[in-house]
């Protein structure tokens, strides 16, 4: 008798699995270090500018984009969406849309509070500036964020579906 899934050379799966777990922890650790670095720089300088936190943003953005591209090219993204949709009431696509709206609202609040705090001379003016900047930020950023998030979701899903269908071809 022989096993159906016999390999020519065996890998120690336990060692590989443990190594992968360590790599996953390192990835999280780098995120935590970047986040703490941003907080520290904000406390020390009293402001957040791209000049100060550029490296941290680059690490977070590039690793996120790299993961998205790799998971789409390996067909993993389709599996992630399928697993998510099986287990959750809200679909992955709905969550993507709500994330876009959420980030837009959050940006609006941050910019609104910043304007009210920096430029208003009275309380009434502070409210006026807050709502004005909040609404304008929503109008400008919300469509861009939604397009960006839905667009990248659709492109990744389409690519991933195509790859996995090719893999499943006999």
């Amino acid at each position, binding site marked *: 008798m022989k096993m*159906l899934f016999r390999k020519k050379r065996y890998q120690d799966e336990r060692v590989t699995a443990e190594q992968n777990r360590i790599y996953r922890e390192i990835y999280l650790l780098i995120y935590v270090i970047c986040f703490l670095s941003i907080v520290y720089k904000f406390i020390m300088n009293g402001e957040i500018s791209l000049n100060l936190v550029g490296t941290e943003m680059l690490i977070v953005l590039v690793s996120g984009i790299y993961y998205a591209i790799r998971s789409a090219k390996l067909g993993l993204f389709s599996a992630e969406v*399928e697993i998510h949709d099986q287990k959750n009431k809200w679909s992955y696509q709905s969550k993507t849309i709500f994330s876009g709206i959420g980030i837009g609202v959050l940006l609006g609040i941050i910019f609104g509070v910043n304007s009210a705090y920096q430029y208003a001379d009275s309380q009434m003016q502070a409210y006026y500036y807050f709502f004005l900047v909040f609404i304008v930020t929503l109008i400008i950023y919300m469509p861009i964020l939604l397009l960006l998030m839905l667009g990248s979701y659709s492109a990744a899903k389409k690519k991933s579906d195509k790859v996995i269908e090719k893999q499943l071809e006999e």
Partner: protein
Amino acid sequence: MKNLKLKMARAEHDLSQAELAKLVGVTRQTIGLIELGKYNPSLQLCIAICRTLNKTLDDLFWEEDG
């Protein structure tokens, strides 16, 4: 090497790849790739598939020589 035994056992239960995947708790793609012999499942996943299809590990994942 293709796992035709798994494909046949799934057919016996009148299950699609997606339905079996849902029962086992994996994706349709994973079941498809196991059937095509393009993915080696862990022992845990093999057992979960066997339990779902009322088969033994020998029934689905071993083949006789010759």
